[in-house]
């Protein structure tokens, strides 16, 4: 039955998808091996697709993704810092097809019928599934910052919280600003994608300004009172960029109340500030398809079983990565990659009627303070009664006191981590 995703339907609905034509033998997968549809080809979705194939090569895996290539949010701050270019963080998914037999379907999932077990695409095609993985990442809430809009983001006040053209726009603005200007960065309240990301961004913009526009300042207007790796970041800013960065906590009036894209001003609790460059990082929810499929809670994120990342809302559906409520795990690429392996193992086991192995999760987030000064947070997690929880007496952040060689080693490992996770995710 499910083997009828019908090449016919897909071919009719999607046009002659190159991957499909190149791998006709995969389209004839045995019905008993099951079909897995994955929505979203980022760190979570691509890893899930690859590991279902590794654990269960006979399973038919279809990866639905809107965009031709993937520009990673990790390392996009280094584009802003001026020492990576966008092409070096842009990746193709072809190895998933060529080496592992994942079928790549270019399209946008617009609806999920969890009773009929079918995903509808924008062009009308439908993809039946035995198991569905929903890994759509985040949706930005443009209405979440009064005065701001998608149009403002695309012209004068970029978010750069999905990497690509937005990253390039923010970089151009930094290049165009005069020495002596103020860069305003406005991070959102929790939860949001990449908790250390705004503060690594502060560091990388400071690196660029220090070397090119040293009279400039960075003002961080935060909705929060505390942030990831805060002690390490603030010590790093103090030692590497003395006097350049001012961070204002939400409780001290840092929370942005409105922005004026025409006047290039930001109004926060403590008053109004003019910025030469203004980076608004808005509140977020799970990606649109997760909301439309009815998989999200009132708060806009998707509740899951901490032992498997199975949806709390629908049978045979797994939600992972940024879209999920993952307990103690941050919304990070490494976390999504790790959750995807647990999901893939659960799917492979369930399709063969076996018990799933015990879930253990891992996260490592490296951040650069300078290109030669790295810091990290890493944790191991297991499912617990309150959700995914850190294994006691393990993990944590880099030591507060460390010599330059240790910081350099972590910067070096940052590069290794990136190369490794790209290989582990996209094959």
């Amino acid at each position, binding site marked *: 039955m499910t083997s009828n995703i019908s090449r016919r339907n897909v071919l009719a609905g999607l046009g002659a998808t190159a991957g499909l034509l190149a791998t006709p033998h995969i389209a004839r997968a045995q019905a008993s091996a099951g079909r897995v549809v994955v929505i979203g080809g980022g760190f979570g979705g691509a890893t899930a697709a690859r*590991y279902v194939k*590794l*654990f269960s*090569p006979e399973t038919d895996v279809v990866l639905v993704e809107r965009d031709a290539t993937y520009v990673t949010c990790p390392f996009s701050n280094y584009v802003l810092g001026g020492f990576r270019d966008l092409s070096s963080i842009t990746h193709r998914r072809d*190895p998933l097809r060529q*080496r*592992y037999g994942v079928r790549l379907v270019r399209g946008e999932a617009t609806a999920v019928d969890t009773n009929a077990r079918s995903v509808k695409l924008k062009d009308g095609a439908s993809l039946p599934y035995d198991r569905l993985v929903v890994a759509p990442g985040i949706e930005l809430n443009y209405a979440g910052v009064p005065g701001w809009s998608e149009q403002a983001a695309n012209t004068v006040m970029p978010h750069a919280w999905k990497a690509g053209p937005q990253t390039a726009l923010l970089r151009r603005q930094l290049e165009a600003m005069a020495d002596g200007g103020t860069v305003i960065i406005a991070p959102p309240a929790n939860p949001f994608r990449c908790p250390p990301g705004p503060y690594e961004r502060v560091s990388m913009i400071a690196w660029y300004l220090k070397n090119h526009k040293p009279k400039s300042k960075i003002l961080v207007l935060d909705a929060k009172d505390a942030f990831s790796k805060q002690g390490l970041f603030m010590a790093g800013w103090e030692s590497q960029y003395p006097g350049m960065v001012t961070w204002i906590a939400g409780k001290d009036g840092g929370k942005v109340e409105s922005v004026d894209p025409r006047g290039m001003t930001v109004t926060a609790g403590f008053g109004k500030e003019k910025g030469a460059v203004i980076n608004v990082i808005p509140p977020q929810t799970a990606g649109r398809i997760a909301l439309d499929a009815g998989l999200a809670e009132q708060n806009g994120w998707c509740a899951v079983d901490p032992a498997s990342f199975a949806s709390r809302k629908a049978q045979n559906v797994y939600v992972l990565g940024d879209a999920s409520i993952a307990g103690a795990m941050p919304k990070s690429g*490494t976390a999504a*990659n*790790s959750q995807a*392996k*647990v999901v893939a*193992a659960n799917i*492979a*086991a369930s399709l063969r009627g*076996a018990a799933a*192995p*015990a*879930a*253990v*999760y*891992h996260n*490592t987030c490296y951040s650069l303070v300078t290109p030669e000064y790295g810091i*990290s947070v*890493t*944790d*191991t997690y297991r499912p617990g009664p309150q959700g995914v929880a850190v*294994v006691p*007496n*393990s*993990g*944590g952040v*880099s030591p507060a006191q460390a010599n330059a060689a*240790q910081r350099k*080693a*972590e910067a*070096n*490992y940052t*590069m*290794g*981590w990136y*190369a*490794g*996770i790209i*290989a*582990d995710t996209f*094959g």
Partner: protein
Amino acid sequence: MSFRIHILAAALVLTAGSAAAQQRIATLDDTALAAQACNVCHGSQSYLSPTMPPIRGVDAATLYTALIELKTDKRPSTIMGRISRGYSDEQLKALADYLSKN
């Protein structure tokens, strides 16, 4: 020092065999799943990291000794001390055995 030599030898073996991508994870148990976490930094049968030492195919006793020394901070590290404390000694032993053979 001997650890270095072992991992270098392992690197050579892996390089020789790295043309074909890993196609299947044969076992699906607690240890096999947990071990996949290592791939992100340390690579796998199909990928060698430019910065992290390879661990696949390294002698199990060598790996286990390294993990215990990292866990107890006898061997200095950046993040491996923090990570290895997330596992019991028995789990580390099982991981070392798995990684040595897979």
